[in-house]
C-alpha cells in the first residue's frame, strides 16, 4: 500500500483499507487529518461502512429506550389506531406520515393523545409528535384549547422543559411536535425501581420545580404535574417536564361529553379536586405528590375509583412518608408536607423557592461538610431530643423574661408552614357546593347487564387429574351445564394423550359465564388458570352488588351539574362507601354499583334534590 503523505482524496479502495485496518498506524495520522478536513471522504467512508438503512437501523435498534418501546409498540391497538390517524407512509418501515413528519413508531398514549416518534424530513431531526386523541379532535373547545395552550407552552424555554417545536391545530387531526427525549418517564422509573435514591429525588425535584418556575414566570399553570409527565433523559442527569397546560383541553371535552374526570387524578391538588380556580400553588401541591411518589414508590392518594381518590385528596392526609420509607430524612418529608398542605396559602410561595431549597438540600447531601442544610429546615432535621431541649430552653427563656406569649415566636419559624393534619376548612359545609338541579329522576331497571353482552374470548389451561375417566367425560363434568357459544379444547403435548394432564380450552362466551364456570370448576376441585381472569373478577361475580341505572333529567343538560350530583351522592354515602360504590356518569345516565341499602340512600338523595327545585 503506497500512501501519499498528504492524501488529496481517497479512492474507495484506500478508504476500505482504512476501514478494515490495513493501513498502518504509522500512516494513519495523515489519513485521519485528511478525513477531518474532507467531507467527501467522510461521506464515502460512511457509505462504505453501511448503507443509510444500516445506520438508521443502528440508531433504532440500539437506543435502549427504543429497545423497550420495540416491545411496547407491538400492542395490538397501535397498528389500527395509527392507520386511522396517519397518512400512508412514504417508507415501508414507517408507520405513516403526518405533515412533514415521518412517523417511526408509537411511543405511548395518554388521556389526551398519542405520542409517536417521528422524523422531521425538513430539519432532519428526530422528534416526538403528540397527536390529539380522535375523541378530542372532534371537540371544538378541546381543539381550540389544545392549540392555545400548546402555543403558550411553546413560549416556555427552559432546560428542564421539553421544547415544543411546532403546533398544527388546523389539520383534521391536530398535533404538536416536541423535542424527542430518549429515556423513560419518571413513572416508568418508579414502576421499575420503586422508591428512588435521595440524591435522585432531590435532583429531579429541583429540576421539575425549576421547569415549573419557568412556566409560572410566563403565567402558565401546568395543571397536570405527575410522574408520567416528567421525562428522564437517558445518559445524562436531566429531568424534563412536558405537557404544559394541556390538561385543560381534556377537562373541557370530558366534562361536557360524559362527566367523567380525565386521566388519573392521583396527583391533583385539593382545589383541583373541588373544581376551583387554580393558582401556581396547585402545581406545587402536585409537585409535592410527585416527590412523595419518588420517596415511597407509590402515589400519595389511592382509592378504587377516581372519585374515591378525589375525596381523599380533599379530605385526608397521605400516610407519613417516613413510615413507608424510613430512609427519607425528616427535612425532606417536611418540605413535601408543606408542598402538600391542603390550603394553598400554607404551601411555599413559588416554584423557584422550592427549586432553590431542593438545590441547597442536594448540595448538602452531596457535600455535607461544605454545604449546610437551608436554615429553615435545620430544626426539623435535629433529633427529637435536641428539639425538646431547644423547646425547654425557649420556655425557660420565655419564663425568665416573664412572658409566656413570646414562646411561640421562639419556636422554629417553619412550624407555621406545616399543615394541621385534621381540619379541612371550607370543605365540610355542604352549603359551599352549588345545589344541582334536577327536575325529575327515575330508576331504570337494567335487564341485560352490560357484562352479559360482552363477548369475550378466554383461554384457560386446566390441569386435570383424570382419575381414569375418559377425556370427554371429564370435560363434560368440567364444563357443566352452561352453554357456551363456542367451545373447543386442545390437548397439549405429543401423541401420547392418555398421559396428558393438561387441557387447554378456548371459549367464546360472556365474561360472566366464564367467570361462573371457572368458579364452578374450582369447586369441583380442578385447577383452573384462566389467562385473563383476575382474582378481583372472581370475587366480583361471587358477591356482585346490584347495578342500577338512574336517569337524571336536568334543568340544563350540562354534565357539570351531573358531576355535582355524583359528588353530592358520594358525599352523602360517606367515606365508608367509597370502596364498594362505583358510579359511572354517561350523559343523563348514572350507573351505580352499590349495595341495596346504598341504593336506597341514593334514591332518597335524588328525591330530596328533585323536590328542592320544584317550582
Amino acid at each position, binding site marked *: 500500500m503506497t500512501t501519499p503523505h498528504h492524501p488529496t482524496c481517497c479512492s474507495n479502495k484506500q478508504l476500505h483499507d*482504512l*476501514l*478494515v*485496518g490495513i493501513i498502518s498506524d504509522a500512516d494513519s495520522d495523515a*489519513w*485521519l*487529518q*485528511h*478525513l*477531518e478536513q474532507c467531507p467527501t471522504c*467522510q461521506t464515502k*467512508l*460512511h457509505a*462504505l*461502512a*453501511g448503507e443509510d438503512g*444500516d*445506520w438508521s*437501523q*443502528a*440508531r433504532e*435498534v*440500539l*437506543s435502549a429506550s427504543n*429497545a423497550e418501546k*420495540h*416491545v411496547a409498540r*407491538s*400492542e*395490538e*391497538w397501535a*397498528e*389500527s389506531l395509527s392507520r386511522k390517524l396517519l397518512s400512508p407512509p412514504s417508507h*415501508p*418501515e414507517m408507520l405513516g406520515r403526518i405533515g412533514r413528519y415521518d412517523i417511526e413508531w408509537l411511543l405511548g398514549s395518554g388521556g389526551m393523545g398519542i405520542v409517536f416518534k417521528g422524523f422531521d424530513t425538513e430539519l432532519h431531526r*428526530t422528534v416526538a409528535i403528540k397527536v390529539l386523541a380522535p375523541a378530542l379532535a372532534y371537540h371544538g373547545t378541546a381543539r381550540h384549547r389544545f392549540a392555545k395552550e400548546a402555543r403558550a407552552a411553546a413560549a416556555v424555554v427552559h432546560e428542564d422543559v421539553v421544547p415544543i417545536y411546532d403546533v398544527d391545530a388546523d389539520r383534521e387531526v391536530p398535533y404538536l411536535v416536541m423535542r424527542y427525549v*430518549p429515556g423513560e418517564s419518571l413513572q416508568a422509573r418508579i414502576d421499575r425501581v420503586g422508591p428512588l435514591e435521595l440524591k435522585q429525588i432531590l435532583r429531579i425535584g429541583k429540576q421539575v420545580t425549576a421547569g415549573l418556575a419557568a412556566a409560572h414566570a410566563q403565567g402558565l399553570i401546568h395543571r397536570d404535574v405527575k410522574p408520567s409527565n416528567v421525562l428522564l433523559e437517558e*445518559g445524562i442527569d436531566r429531568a424534563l417536564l412536558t405537557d404544559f397546560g394541556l390538561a385543560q383541553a381534556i377537562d373541557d371535552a370530558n366534562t361536557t361529553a360524559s362527566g367523567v374526570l380525565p386521566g388519573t387524578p392521583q396527583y391533583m391538588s385539593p382545589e383541583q379536586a373541588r373544581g376551583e380556580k387554580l393558582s401556581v400553588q396547585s402545581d406545587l401541591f402536585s409537585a409535592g405528590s410527585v416527590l412523595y411518589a419518588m420517596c415511597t414508590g407509590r402515589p400519595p392518594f389511592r382509592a378504587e375509583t377516581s372519585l374515591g381518590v378525589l375525596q381523599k385528596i380533599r379530605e385526608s392526609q397521605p400516610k407519613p412518608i417516613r413510615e413507608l420509607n424510613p430512609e427519607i430524612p425528616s427535612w425532606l418529608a417536611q418540605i413535601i408536607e408543606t408542598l402538600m398542605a391542603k390550603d394553598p396559602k400554607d404551601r411555599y410561595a413559588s416554584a423557584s423557592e422550592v427549586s432553590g431549597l431542593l438545590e441547597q438540600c442536594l448540595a448538602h447531601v452531596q457535600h455535607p461538610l461544605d454545604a449546610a442544610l437551608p436554615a429553615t429546615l435545620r430544626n426539623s432535621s435535629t433529633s427529637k431530643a435536641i428539639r425538646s431541649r431547644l423547646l425547654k430552653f425557649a420556655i425557660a427563656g420565655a419564663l425568665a423574661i416573664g412572658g409566656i406569649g413570646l414562646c411561640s415566636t421562639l419556636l422554629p419559624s417553619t412550624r407555621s408552614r406545616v399543615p394541621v393534619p385534621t381540619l379541612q376548612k371550607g370543605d365540610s359545609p355542604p352549603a359551599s357546593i352549588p345545589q344541582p338541579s334536577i327536575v325529575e329522576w327515575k330508576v331504570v331497571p337494567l335487564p341485560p347487564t352490560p357484562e352479559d353482552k360482552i363477548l369475550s*374470548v378466554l*383461554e384457560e*389451561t386446566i390441569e386435570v387429574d383424570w382419575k381414569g375417566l375418559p377425556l370427554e367425560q371429564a370435560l363434560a363434568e368440567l364444563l357443566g351445564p352452561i352453554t357456551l357459544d*363456542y367451545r*373447543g379444547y386442545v390437548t*397439549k*403435548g*405429543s401423541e401420547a394423550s392418555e398421559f396428558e394432564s*393438561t387441557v*387447554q380450552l*378456548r371459549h*367464546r362466551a360472556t365474561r360472566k359465564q366464564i367467570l361462573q364456570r371457572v368458579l364452578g370448576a374450582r369447586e369441583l376441585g380442578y385447577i383452573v*388458570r384462566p*389467562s385473563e381472569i383476575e382474582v378481583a373478577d372472581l370475587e366480583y361475580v361471587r358477591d356482585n352488588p346490584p347495578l342500577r341505572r338512574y336517569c337524571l333529567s336536568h334543568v340544563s343538560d350540562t354534565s357539570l351539574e351531573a358531576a355535582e350530583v355524583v359528588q353530592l351522592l358520594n358525599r352523602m354515602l360517606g367515606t365508608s362507601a367509597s370502596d364498594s360504590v362505583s358510579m359511572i356518569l354517561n350523559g343523563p345516565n348514572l350507573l351505580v354499583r352499590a349495595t341495596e341499602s346504598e341504593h336506597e340512600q341514593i334514591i332518597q338523595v335524588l328525591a330530596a334534590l328533585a323536590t328542592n327545585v320544584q317550582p
Partner: protein
Amino acid sequence: MDGHPGRDPTLKALSIIPGSTIVMHDLDPETRASLLLKLRDSADAIAWHDFTEIYSPVIHRTAKRMGLQTADADNVVQEVLLAVSKSIHQWLDREERIGFRPWLSRIARNKALDLITRRATRPEFGSNVQWDNLEQRESATATYWDFEYRWELFSRAATEVRRTAAESTWQAFWLSTIEERPIADVAQSLGVREGVVYLSRCRIMDRIRKLVKQWETSE
C-alpha cells in the same frame, strides 16, 4: 432485550418463554438428549442453540404484531420450535443436505408464517386487527417477520461487536451515532482527534453490518 432466552445450550428457549401457559413436557429430556446426539456435529448443536435464541423472540413479536395475545404468541413459539425439532430427522435423512442454519431458517419461517397467519384469521384467538383477505394477512405477517428477524439479528450483532471491540472505539460509535452528539464533542470527551471518531464509528458499523450479513447467509 432481556427476558428472552438465556445461555443454556440445551434447548432452554423452549421452556422459558415468559407467561407460557404450557408446562413444557413437549420436549422431554430424552428427546432433547437424542436431538443433541443426532446433531453430532457440534457446529450444528450450536446452530440449534443460536436458532432457538434468535427465533423465539422473532416468532413471539411477529405473532403479537399480527394481533395474537401473549399466551397465543407463546404457544406459537413453542409449536414452531417443536415442529422444527421434530422435522430435524428429515434434514438428517437427506442425501444432499443444505446447511443446517439455512435449513432451520427456511423451515422456521415457513412454519411460523403459516401458524401466525392462520391464527390471526381467527377472531376467537384474540386478534382485533382486521385484514381484508388472506393475501393481505400473509404479506403482513411476512413483512413483520422480516422486520423482526432483521431487528433481532442486528441487535445481536451489535452486542457481539460491542463485546469484542475496544471500549473507546465503541464509545466513539455510540456517542456520535446513537446519541447523535456532534463529532467535535465526542472527540473531546474521549480525548481523541476527530478523525478517530469518524473512523471508529464507521469501523463498528462495518463490523455489525458484516456480522448480520454473515448470519443471514451463513451456510
